[in-house]
């Protein structure tokens, strides 16, 4: 089976690796590395939301920050509209910053407390030398209106707002330069449920209005399913499964996706979901297991077979990719992948 090729992706990440050196001893010599992102490939289409889920420490935030180039990748390619941006200098990246923006988890930490909302929102225009003062003021009012804040908010400071309103300011700032792609790193996890739904609705509306693409990183799986077109499941620095949101929640193929999805608490007290309880926690990304990381966690009998083997993503059904890992697939699914190989 030939892999379904995504035509003209907006963003295309290929074999991306981000390793942080671990230094120890008196000489602070590099002794090992945290393999936070370890060979990730993914595509995002224009106007699409790709959800990214996984447990804490799996590298999903590092991946997001690397795509906006807040972190320098160790190796691999990040193609944005066909241009590789993985090793551009900060200066050459500048025009690109208009196209890729980021929304952070905690808006009280990502907004400068000493800047008024107006200065926060007009800063992008000043940096990119867009418009004079009157035009900037007009844009600030427009932005505030668009995210549902009164124009009077411009002259107030972040601390005067509630968490949900601060997140609206964060979204307005990200929108200021009319980006094409927004990396949303846990944008609603710090918010109460009633406010969370307001922000999710806003993100959906803005996407339809401006044709935005989102990389939506979150640990709340119901939220991710709600907002995403496709979902990627990440485990210990690697993506283990990608598929259409409906498909992956209905029919996950990878053992880790199955366990993760079965852990979602149901809001119906009469239904007790069948849990796949995992033992232990995510292993450390310092010196990860040589073979299948998840196979190692569940002590799978076929683990030895995966050491040194190619566990990269393969297409199991049209648009449904899963790691070619004998420990984590049913024997039938694994056979299916091997057959399609020939």
């Amino acid at each position, binding site marked *: 089976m030939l892999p379904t090729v995504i035509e003209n992706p907006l963003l295309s990440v290929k074999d991306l690796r981000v390793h942080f050196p671990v230094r120890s001893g008196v000489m602070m010599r590099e002794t090992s590395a945290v393999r936070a992102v370890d060979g990730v490939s993914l595509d995002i289409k224009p106007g699409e939301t790709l959800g990214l889920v996984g447990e804490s420490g799996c590298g999903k935030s590092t991946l997001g920050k690397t795509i906006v180039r807040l972190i320098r990748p160790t190796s691999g390619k990040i193609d944005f509209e066909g241009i590789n941006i993985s090793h551009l200098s900060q200066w050459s990246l500048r025009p690109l910053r208009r196209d890729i923006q980021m929304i952070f988890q905690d808006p009280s930490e990502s907004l400068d407390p000493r800047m008024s909302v107006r200065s926060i929102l007009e800063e992008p225009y000043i940096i990119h030398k867009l418009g004079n003062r009157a035009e900037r003021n007009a844009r600030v009012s427009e932005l505030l209106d668009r995210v549902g804040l009164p124009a009077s908010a411009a002259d107030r400071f972040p601390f005067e707002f509630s968490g949900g309103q601060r997140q609206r300011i964060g979204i307005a700032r990200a929108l200021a330069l009319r980006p094409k792609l927004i990396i949303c790193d846990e944008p609603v996890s710090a918010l109460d*449920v009633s406010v969370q*739904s307001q922000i*999710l*609705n806003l993100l959906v509306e803005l996407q339809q209005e401006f044709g935005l693409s989102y990389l939506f990183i979150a640990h709340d*799986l119901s939220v991710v399913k*709600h907002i995403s077109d496709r979902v990627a499941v990440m485990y210990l620095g690697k993506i283990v499964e990608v598929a259409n949101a409906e498909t992956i929640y209905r029919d996950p193929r990878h053992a880790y996706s199955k366990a993760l999805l079965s*852990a979602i*608490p149901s*809001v119906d007290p009469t239904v007790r979901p069948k849990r796949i309880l995992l033992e232990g926690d*995510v292993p450390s990304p310092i010196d990860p297991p040589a073979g299948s990381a998840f196979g190692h966690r569940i002590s799978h009998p076929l683990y030895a077979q995966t050491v040194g083997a190619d566990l990269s993503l393969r297409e199991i059904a049209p648009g449904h990719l899963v790691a070619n890992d004998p420990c984590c697939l049913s024997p039938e699914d694994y056979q299916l992948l091997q057959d399609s190989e020939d």
Partner: protein
Amino acid sequence: MSESADTILEVDKLITSFETEQGLLRAVDQVSFSVQRGKTLGIVGESGCGKSVTAMSIIRLLPQPAGKILGGHVHFKGTDLVRASDAEMRKIRGGDIGVIFQEPMTALNPLHRIGRQVSEVFRLHQKLSKKDAWDAATEMLKLVRIPAPEQRMMDFPHQLSGGMRQRIVIALALACRPSLVIADEPTTALDVTVQAQILDLMAKLQEEMGMSTILITHDLGVIAETCDEVVVMYAGRVVERASAIELFANPLHAYTKGLLSSIPTLDTPSKSILNTIPGTVASLGDYSHGCRFCQRMGRTAPVSRERPKFTEVSTGHWVETCPECYQP
């Protein structure tokens, strides 16, 4: 609300206030509920609704000197905890009432080994010798399913993962075989897979030890899975109380309905517009009159100036009957 033989804790018209620069803020405003033997009561609400303050009032761990209990009773096994002496409270906390805090890193002392912290409970409450307390603590770690407990006893908290630390905190809470455990957001800081492990563990231990639990959380999914009875709090007041099955099937207060319909579930159509509750949780300063949820919705109908009555509308289902917010 009559006290039956099976009631282990009864909170009656509890009022807790904080002294602040803006004056006295009533964080808990005449809250009443009871916990049955062997059952789990959930308290759910958004941040600032007073759910944690209610729990901390029960065990009298309010920040001092700002926090004060101004009225009401907390009956626990024949003692009114509101009027108990500090010495009595010290005996009850960690003895007959165990507490599980949200953040397992701050609930443990980073400078002491796990073994010392867990065995301390046995030395203080059961006056065991050093060696006996150590053995009892190892037993406790085994009970909360910590692998290789003998080795973990020698570890410091930072050497353990979040899930393992939360197991230690549970071990501390359960050490003296309490009849009531108060768990304040026990799984909020954890990943879903670890949350599933911890909830599963708590349910098993509850069955084994027959204790009652008060579970405080903002996560309706966790409530639906673990609780027998649910109390919904809004701005310091209980707006609705019912069995979990009844509450999720038949919510009657506008706030409960709003909460339930604003969370996306796996069945919600993708990218559909979710229901929202306008505004944010009311500030506690303006507590004097009327229905607080009406204030959030921007309703100031004269009819709702009086505090709505908390009424039992069907067996075991209590709700604040504000003419606007009570929506049968």
